[in-house]
């Protein structure tokens, strides 16, 4: 009986999670869907055609989003990996303070710091550029990559590296051939979430990009403020694709029952 109740609970949770996607899928392929019909009376590919139109805005925006999120993922891991190594492997004075400082952008909204830094970015010529947008995307991503990688390094003892060093490997070679392959899955998860957090950013891009850097959420936002659910839903489905793909990938890296890894990941917004 307990088991059946658990399964019923799981079904309810799954249905609630799936609910917002139902109208998105239906509207994306709807031709005509008048109130109070429960299903569209006509189907159409208008929404899909809009998405893949050559010379349309969607392809360009997708490319911009991919570039910025890809660069952010790589940079935030490059910055978060050494920090994670230091925090996960060593004990030192002020460690608590360092962790607090690194986690601060999770508690204090990056919107405040980004508005503050905007003038400086304008002066340095970084405003209205994809590079400037990439830079401010590091603020919400680095805390997460650093903390995910901290937990990855905290679980390791460093014995293997010691063995390699005893056998005459340089510190760099020990890192490259022993440490890196072992932490690779954790690095991949961190990179995926760095990518996703950057991919989801709207207001930081809007502030620093100033309308010149058009990423997918820019198009989705203006569509959602308008009155065409077909286009809006099509865009929303494209926008959610990497999240789903990344989720499937991330889950493959995890051994069963090891949700703790994903946990640190927290909530890309």
């Amino acid at each position, binding site marked *: 009986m307990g088991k059946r109740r658990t399964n019923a609970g799981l079904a309810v949770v799954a249905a609630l999670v799936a609910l*917002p996607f139902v109208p998105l899928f239906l509207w994306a392929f709807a031709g005509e869907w008048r109130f109070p019909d429960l299903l569209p009376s006509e189907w159409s590919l208008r929404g899909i055609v809009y998405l893949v139109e050559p010379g349309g805005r969607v392809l360009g925006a997708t490319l911009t989003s991919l570039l910025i999120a890809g660069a952010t993922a790589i940079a935030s891991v490059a910055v978060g990996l050494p920090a994670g190594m230091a925090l996960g492997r060593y004990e*030192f004075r002020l460690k608590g303070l360092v962790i607090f400082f690194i986690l601060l*952008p999770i508690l204090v909204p990056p919107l405040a710091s980004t508005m503050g830094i905007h003038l400086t970015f304008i002066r340095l010529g970084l405003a209205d550029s994809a590079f400037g947008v990439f830079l401010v995307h590091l603020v919400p991503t*680095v805390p997460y990559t650093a903390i995910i990688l901290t937990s990855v390094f905290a679980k390791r003892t460093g014995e293997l590296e010691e063995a390699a060093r005893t056998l005459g490997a340089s510190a760099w070679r020990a890192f490259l051939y022993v440490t890196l392959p072992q932490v690779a899955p954790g690095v991949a998860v961190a990179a995926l979430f760095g990518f996703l957090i950057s991919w989801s950013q709207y207001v930081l891009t809007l502030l620093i990009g100033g309308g010149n850097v058009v990423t997918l959420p820019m198009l989705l936002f203006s569509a959602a403020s308008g009155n065409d659910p077909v286009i809006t839903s099509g865009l929303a489905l494209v926008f959610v694709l990497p999240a789903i793909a990344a989720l499937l990938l991330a889950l493959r890296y995890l051994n069963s029952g090891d949700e703790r890894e994903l946990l640190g990941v927290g909530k890309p917004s």
Partner: protein
Amino acid sequence: MGGRLKITLLLTPALLVLGVLFTGGLYAALVQSLGYLPAIGMTGMSFDAYREVLGREDFLDALLLTVYVAGVSTALATVLAVLAALALRRGPGRVSSVVFQVPITVPHLVAAVGIALVISQTGLGARLAAALGLIGEPAEFPALLYDKYSVGVILTYVWKETPFIALVVLAGLRGVAAELEDVAKTLGANAWQRFWYVIFPVIAPGIVASSLIVFAFTFGAFEVPYLLGEDYPTMLPVMAYEEYRSIELSDRPVAMAINVLIALITAAFAAAYLRFARNLGRG
């Protein structure tokens, strides 16, 4: 072999990036909120912007709305998450973690758009109500978007954040000794007593940490209320943004003052909450 130096070098990139882009940005916001904007010829320093903001009725309305939305969203998400985690903890862990993972990875904008298409007056909910004969016209369905009670905003946050807290609680539940629960049961503890005295102390730290993150996030987030919230009052981040976008450059200090207040409130709340949680743990 130079452990101190090594640790410093390893930490430098992250501290530099966040120090410049985040702390530097907050510092710039603070300075600008005091009216120091040499770029437009403002070099005096004063608390005028704060005086103006704190005296404005729309700021107080925005503050109330923000506390209300963040508080209700966090409370609902926390309760639902604990219930869901308790219901699912004996189930297939992998399946529930995949299900919970979906809303966590889906961007807020997509969640907002999907929820809007469910609860709007021509949405799935209204169509279902019409099919059941409950309403005839879309206008008869309650307005849940751009409304006084921010139902759309709250529902979007609850959908997005509940699974995050639930995963933390699920992980915590694995630390609850099954034997202890059995003993409590044998000794005649009812379900509530078993939860409160055996389970809750174990999962409490996770609940505190995750709900704190959710509160701070919903307090300072912009997208969802900008899309689904009413025009007046707006939540604080939306208000800050709108002041910032104002053509009057002299409105900038006001926008920055709102930003600084958001940062201070979230930081103060975090500190108070953590202290409270620590005392709770001791008691």
